[in-house]
């Protein structure tokens, strides 16, 4: 039936393991912040911070994105997922790769283990890319959201191959730029090309849908798309060739692209018919407010003022942390409440619809816990950020402890949703 996507949704067995692994990975990440707070107050290239970073971007963020995309592709492209089997194999490989790579970084063991991890991750990504591309080809629905998603997947591929090249370059140098320039290149391909682009593609469709916003100016999305990708291409070329002016222009282009996107979201927010925001949407609004911080920080770093020169290291770590642990983590924490309950609700109640009283998806989790989670995340993240800026291990640790509690609440609610069983009286 045209326009009806629920008969295209994949089995929860494909999606749910991604959420479980992601939640556990985030718990480990927050525990590592408590155990080793000093990794946030040293030079930004230190092995343990690289370990935490890779566990965050692969084990938490990419893991959840893979799982969520398998669920959301039918909504956005209005077709069935190409292969559930490929998705399951990709999950196992990504999980193994994320664990092994983070472990190798933690011990700074650039040997066989790291190569194997990189290969696991590359195969996982290739399988994911095949799945998304084959699904996308089946869809006849042309849209800017689909273009964002397909381009994001291309950048993901570039990012993981760039990562492998970095590992090889560590032991057998063959690339011209410095290792620091290559790390920046690899990181930005992943953050902007993969994460930002994917988030924009998916959220530009879902957030107006959740808020019931209509008649939005989609030209802003096109401007976002071109400025973001042209800026990223220029940035990567310039970083590789050590061309600072090119890097500066690239940054302006990407910052402008994100401002165009934020303006699109603001328009959706103002035009929303559904005025009451639920807890998932409140946390999502917080995420986009957090996103303003790294935009400011990157401009400070590049067009920096002399007085800030001594603060470069904390600003770089704060920049990365606000994107990964702030903006993206907060958005996932919020959007979990907009996706996971529906996945489970459809599985449990699909055949009971219209046959008696059934709970609403919102009733599958505790809203009270989700509200405490929103506040504790905000407090924990602000303290962590303060600790990074002030280079205080104690503050970083305190922020980490509050984040551990936050993630415990998040995991409790996620498991409550996943393990939901219908009440006998509903039969």
């Amino acid at each position, binding site marked *: *039936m*045209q*326009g*009806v*996507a*629920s*008969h295209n*949704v994949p089995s929860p067995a494909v999606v749910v393991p991604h959420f479980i692994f992601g939640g556990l990975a985030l718990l480990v990440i927050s525990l590592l912040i408590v155990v080793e707070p000093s990794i946030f107050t040293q030079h930004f290239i230190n092995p343990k911070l690289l370990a935490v970073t890779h566990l965050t971007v692969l084990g938490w963020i990419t893991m959840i994105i893979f799982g969520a995309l398998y669920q959301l592709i*039918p*909504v*956005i492209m*209005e077709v069935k997922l190409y292969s559930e089997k490929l998705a399951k194999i990709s999950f196992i490989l990504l999980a193994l790769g994320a664990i092994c790579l983070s472990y190798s970084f933690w011990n700074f063991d650039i040997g066989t283990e790291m190569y194997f991890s990189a290969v696991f991750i590359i195969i996982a990504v290739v399988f994911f890319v095949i799945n998304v591309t084959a699904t996308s080809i089946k869809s006849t629905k042309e849209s800017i959201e689909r273009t964002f998603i397909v381009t994001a997947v291309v950048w993901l591929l570039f990012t993981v191959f760039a990562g492998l090249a970095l590992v090889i370059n560590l032991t057998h140098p063959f690339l011209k730029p410095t290792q620091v320039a290559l790390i920046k290149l690899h990181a930005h391909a992943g953050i902007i090309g993969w994460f930002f682009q994917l988030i924009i593609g998916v959220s530009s*469709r879902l957030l*107006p*849908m*959740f808020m*019931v916003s*209509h008649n939005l100016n989609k030209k802003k999305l096109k401007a976002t798309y071109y400025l973001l990708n042209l800026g990223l291409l220029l940035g990567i070329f310039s970083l590789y060739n050590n061309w600072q002016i090119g890097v500066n222009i690239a940054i302006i282009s990407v910052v402008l692209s994100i401002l165009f996107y934020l303006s699109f979201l603001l328009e959706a927010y103002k035009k929303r*018919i*559904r*005025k*009451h925001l639920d807890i998932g949407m409140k946390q999502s609004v917080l995420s986009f407010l957090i996103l303003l911080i790294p935009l400011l920080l990157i401009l400070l770093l590049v067009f920096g003022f002399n007085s800030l020169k001594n603060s470069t290291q904390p600003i770089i770590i704060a920049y990365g942390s606000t994107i990964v642990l702030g903006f993206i983590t907060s958005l996932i924490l919020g959007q979990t409440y907009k996706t996971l309950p*529906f996945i489970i*609700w*459809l599985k449990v109640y*699909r055949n009971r*619809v*219209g*046959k008696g009283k059934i709970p*609403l*998806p*919102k009733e599958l989790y505790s809203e009270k816990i989700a509200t405490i989670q929103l506040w504790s995340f905000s407090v924990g993240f602000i303290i962590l950020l303060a600790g990074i800026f002030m280079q205080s291990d104690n503050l970083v640790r305190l922020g980490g402890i509050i984040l551990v509690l936050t993630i415990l609440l998040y995991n409790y609610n996620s498991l409550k949703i996943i393990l939901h069983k219908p009440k006998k009286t509903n039969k």
Partner: protein
Amino acid sequence: MNTEDQNIFTLLKEVIDPELMVNIIDLGLVYGVRLDKDKKEIVIDLTLTSPGCPLGEVIIEDAQQIISKIYPNFKVKVNLVWEPAWSLKNLTPEGRIALGSV
């Protein structure tokens, strides 16, 4: 609108959009209802707030089940329509209150 059609409209108030948590009549999703006694058929013209809505099929099934329970000898058919596109104007005063759009 005759009494039977009115009755079907009232019954459809039991169908709740699981995301918006408002019934489909107050959301203004039902564009028309026709009961044909000769053909033993009930036709419901229904729209969704967004094309590709992941819960569209659930809403349709819910509507079919609820009407079929009261009219067991009738075939219930739901037409998904996109014209005119759903807008704020479709909401009833109760729907506006439920969404906070007043």
